[in-house]
């Protein structure tokens, strides 16, 4: 990415070495992302500024007046707020699949709510709060059985676990660059399956078909008006290439081992509540019997989540996120609307020693203060 900052011109808008290098790097990034996420056509990997923009491109570009949409309690505000707005404008009707107090999705409700009138089903592959993993193949089956499309929010899963949008039956997949894909902030994208069309939300220059009044029919330009973040995409492509080299299965196994270690340790800390759906026997958390994403959220008795996050950061140099996590429905399901929760996130560079340090900090903070 540093080399890109020092050399790139504006790809697809010029023909010098710098411009062509940028365009080549963007092409390579599309190809790598397609390979990692099981997309058959890399020209349908559309870049955006983040996953929120990608989700908006999909929602506003697919939904038509009168459509019915089903989303879930797992969804982030990047899904919920555009849908609430579409609903408020009288353009769509919306139903949300609830989750229970352990954050488990109600698949029976999903089957009831999705009907032949439903145009789109939206689901998060991994809850950004509990880290639990949705049964995407089942959701796709329900959607397609009713003639609906499936939009998958893969913000938490892409790069962290095997994701094969073709095998899963995903029609639209939104990803962010800055989480497990190891790219910089300001990168993300939408993958559109062959045969699915998305009306452009943004219109403008593409470097192609300049005399046509409308956006081109060809992907990715159809959904990429304006100059891309070539430098950021270079960083994202490097991150994805590193994941491909390492093997996403191996990285996922690493994350799962850290989740097991952390949750097992949390169970030993007095007053520590771990949110989400975990097996009693954490040995089952192996990705096959029971899968999990690279985040775990907790609370500690006697601590507000914001206060705990601050103490972990200031006194132990442990970075976590407190509060609502832009996941209002999930917090309501878990009963943590008033308290929030503290989310720990793991990745390829997180070690067992880091986990143990976090557990030691929690144990210390949980201990009653001496009089």
């Amino acid at each position, binding site marked *: 990415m540093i080399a890109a900052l020092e050399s790139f011109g504006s*790809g*697809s*808008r010029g*023909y010098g070495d710098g411009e*062509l290098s940028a*365009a*080549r790097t*963007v*092409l390579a990034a*599309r190809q790598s992302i397609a390979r990692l996420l099981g997309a058959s056509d*890399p*020209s349908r990997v559309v870049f955006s500024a983040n996953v929120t923009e990608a989700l908006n491109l999909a929602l506003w570009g697919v939904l038509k007046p009168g459509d019915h949409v089903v989303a879930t309690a797992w969804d982030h505000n990047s899904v919920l707020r555009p849908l609430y707005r579409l609903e408020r404008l009288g353009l769509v009707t919306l139903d949300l699949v609830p989750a229970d107090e352990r954050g488990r999705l109600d698949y029976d409700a999903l089957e009831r709510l999705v009907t032949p009138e439903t145009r789109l089903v939206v689901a998060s592959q991994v809850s950004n709060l509990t880290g639990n993993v949705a049964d995407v193949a089942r959701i796709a089956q329900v959607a397609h059985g009713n003639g609906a499309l499936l939009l998958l929010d893969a913000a938490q899963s892409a790069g962290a676990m095997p994701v094969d949008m073709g095998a899963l039956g995903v029609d639209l997949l939104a990803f962010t660059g800055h989480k497990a894909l190891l790219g910089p902030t300001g990168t993300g994208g939408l993958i559109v399956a062959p045969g699915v069309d998305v009306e452009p939300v943004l219109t403008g220059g*593409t*470097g*192609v*078909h*300049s005399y046509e009044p409308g956006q*081109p029919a*060809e*992907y*990715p*330009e159809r959904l990429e008006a304006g100059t891309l973040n070539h430098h950021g995409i270079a960083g994202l492509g490097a991150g994805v290439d590193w994941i491909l080299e390492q093997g996403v299965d191996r990285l996922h196994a690493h994350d799962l081992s850290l989740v097991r270690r952390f949750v097992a340790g949390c169970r030993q800390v007095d007053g520590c509540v771990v949110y989400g759906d975990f097996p009693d026997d954490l040995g089952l958390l192996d990705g096959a019997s029971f899968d999990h994403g690279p985040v775990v959220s907790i609370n500690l008795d006697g601590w507000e989540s914001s206060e705990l996050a601050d103490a972990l950061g200031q006194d132990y140099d442990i970075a976590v996120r407190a509060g609502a996590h832009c996941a209002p429905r999930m917090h309501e399901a878990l009963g943590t609307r008033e308290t929030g929760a503290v989310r720990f996130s793991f990745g390829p560079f997180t070690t067992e020693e880091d986990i143990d340090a976090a557990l030691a900090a929690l144990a210390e903070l949980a201990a009653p203060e001496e009089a």
Partner: protein
Amino acid sequence: MARRPKRPRAVASFSSTFDAMAAEGACKDAGVEGRLIPTPVAISAECGMAWSMPPEERGHFESVMAERALRFAAVTDLEL
């Protein structure tokens, strides 16, 4: 610098930058002689970039595109 003398070229045009860049990668990989150039105005320019090659490379280019299922709009003979 003096203007370059014109010579016959076969110029492949594309409908998208993605297609042009994918073609460039395939041509370099397969040894199709040529390079990306700004699309000549004589071609109804759809993408701003075109693949310019010696006329004798046309068949090689077309077979590489077919083998790799890559898209191009047309190949036009021009004096460039």
